[in-house]
């Protein structure tokens, strides 16, 4: 009897527990901001450029809290497809737009609600820097910026009121090198496959970005001139992968990397002396006191750009809070924070207000530093007298050759990339 009672009691408790779990599951379906008093935004993104300082400043200025959902670039895209209601705002890259927009999972962003819209850099809106056209091979932001309407699944070729993402941050990427181990000037992407660096080169193992670096190399070697590196035909993909497969088989590469930290370690340890690299990774190697240069190359840069998007279901108060967050983001403080990391803010005039004159001269004007240059975390990045790799904003962004891209033959490209890794 006693036994039975306990069993019944247990059943009761477990049913209650089940109910609680089911309830929690239901609650999750609602946007987090309605559930809490202080507005909380679930921020989906790679968050490589979002430190604690940003969160603190945001809360002090607006009372908004951010809950990060940190994923890799590819996983962010996957999450937008498979769990479109699991976040309130997404920080995504423009090159994902050709995949994302047709799904209808993202809302067209209303530029009328963005205070600084007219100040967004022309690199995004027109594909120009300082009045000059820059390279637009690949998924250049201007190609996938405008939508035909708020709920449209089609891109507009002319500027409209609605955009796919509100631009936030972008940069021009190139090869990173160890000048102390190479001991001679490097000026071309072709050096990545130079037999001189056999067993000491690396490329990133993220197919959509790696293929662009590979294309820059193939073109620099004079093997082939692509009509559009960012949208290769099957034959062009075959050719590119063939050259890299041969290089891989002959032992050109020490390793491939797929994680930011891996690239830092390969470079800092001297296992690799030349590789595709991202700006903050260079900074990370340098703050260890190891020389590392983000080498400008004569063929130009591979650029990328990111921005904020909202899920298609966003409306009412939730939308207000997200737009408030985006307006705060573009109001200057974060822009200065991004510029100090070596990225560029999408709204330059507001960022300038929050930077010291000597910082502005170093980061944006390409002038020699008149004082030590510090990272946002207070670590020394450059000494007095040093000049930023690649120089000024106009010199760097003006020399963009192509943008990260989603190709029409993306499926084929990923398969071929897998084959190269297996070869």
């Amino acid at each position, binding site marked *: 009897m006693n036994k039975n009672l306990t069993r019944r009691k247990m059943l009761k408790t477990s049913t209650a527990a089940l109910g609680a779990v089911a309830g929690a599951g239901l609650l999750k379906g609602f946007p987090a901001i309605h559930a809490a008093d202080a507005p909380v935004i679930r921020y989906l993104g790679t968050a490589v450029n979002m430190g604690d300082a940003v969160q603190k400043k945001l809360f002090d200025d607006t009372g908004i809290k951010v809950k990060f959902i940190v994923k890799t670039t590819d996983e962010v895209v996957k999450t937008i*497809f498979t769990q479109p209601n699991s976040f309130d705002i997404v920080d995504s890259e423009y090159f994902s737009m050709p*995949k994302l927009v047709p799904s209808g999972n993202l809302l067209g962003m209303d530029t009328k609600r963005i205070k600084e819209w007219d100040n967004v850099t022309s690199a995004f809106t027109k594909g120009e820097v300082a009045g000059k056209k820059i390279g637009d091979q690949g998924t250049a932001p201007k190609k996938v910026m405008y939508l035909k309407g708020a709920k449209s699944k089609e891109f507009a070729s002319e500027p409209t009121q609605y955009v796919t993402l509100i631009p936030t941050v972008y940069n021009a990427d190139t090869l990173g090198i160890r000048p102390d181990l190479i001991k001679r000037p490097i000026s071309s992407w072709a050096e990545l496959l130079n037999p001189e660096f056999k067993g000491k080169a690396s490329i990133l193992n993220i197919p959509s970005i790696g293929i662009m670096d590979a294309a820059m190399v193939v073109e620099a070697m004079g093997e082939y001139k692509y009509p559009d590196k960012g949208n290769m035909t099957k034959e062009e993909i075959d050719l590119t992968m063939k050259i890299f497969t041969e290089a891989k088989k002959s032992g050109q590469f020490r390793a491939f990397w797929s994680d930011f930290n891996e690239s830092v*370690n390969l470079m800092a340890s001297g296992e690799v002396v030349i590789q595709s690299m991202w700006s903050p990774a260079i900074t990370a190697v340098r703050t260890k006191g190891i020389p590392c240069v983000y080498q400008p190359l004569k063929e130009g840069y591979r650029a990328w750009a990111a921005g904020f998007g909202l899920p298609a279901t966003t409306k009412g108060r939730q939308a207000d809070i997200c737009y408030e967050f985006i307006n705060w983001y573009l109001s200057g403080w974060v822009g200065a924070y991004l510029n100090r990391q070596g990225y560029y803010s999408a709204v330059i005039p507001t960022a300038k207000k929050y930077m010291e004159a000597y910082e502005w001269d170093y980061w944006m004007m390409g002038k020699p530093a008149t004082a030590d240059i510090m990272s946002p975390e207070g670590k020394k990045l450059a000494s007095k007298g040093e000049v930023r790799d690649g120089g000024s904003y106009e010199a760097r962004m003006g020399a963009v050759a192509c943008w990260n891209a989603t190709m029409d033959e993306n499926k084929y490209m990923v398969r071929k990339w897998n084959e190269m890794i*297996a070869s």
Partner: protein
Amino acid sequence: MMKFLKLKPSVGLLSIPYSLIFIFFFFIPLALTFIISFWDYNEYSIIPDFIFENYSYIFKDCFNFEKDLCVTFKTYLSTFLFCFVTWFFTLIIGFFVAYFLAFYVSSITWQIVLFLLCTIPFWTSNVIRMISWIPLLGRNGLINDFLLSTGLADAPQEWLLYSGFSIVLAFVHLYTLFMIVPIFNSMMRIDKSIIEAAYDNGANGVQILWNIIVPLCKPGIVIGSIFVITVVMGDFITIGIMGGQQIPSIGKIIYVEMSYLQLPAAAANAVILLALTLLIIWIMTKMIDIRKEL
């Protein structure tokens, strides 16, 4: 199960919670994977269909023997090789570590302490492990420094890191514990009087090991082998990190396909991997009936 229920209702009821867990978290996901492997897909969605394209692509060019070995066969071949070498070393090392713990360490306290020592490789994260091998095996690492300074080598040995060698090293380092535990468990069940009887009849140490301990440890060896083989077959993190992302693994192919939302292709690869792994385990359980031995 119905027959079971009729005979003993209480036993049938007791098995319900586990059956439910099994159905919801194992059988249904697996069935879905199998179904989706026949679907079509595009950039952003999967399309219900019944096509064999996902499978036929995996084996494309595989049966054209004039060409080089196809990617799929190459990848499986390299995975099988890692499986075998890792299995071999973990078995040898695991067996003797278990032997030492079971027969030479008599106090339970020390057995526990030494067991905990064996779990040390699991205390670190993948990232830490990845970073910590470079100073040891790298071009400017400890081993190369030693080889160069003693004149044993004139140039840094590059095969130490980002190679098949470093992958096997990491696997053995990680998974020997999976062998130690079941083999140790089998050894502790061996009736000591059998060994004493063998001694009394004049058997030497090697004969006792080979004719008594090894046969009685078979269930432990098979269980350990199943652990090691299934883990190595599906691994892509260790192979990726230690192989410098240059050595293929089925897991990595599935991972890349998933991150590009090519879910049906990934599902087809997963089904084949699962079938092969099950086949290996089936062969192993044919060699020895674990249920009977336990």
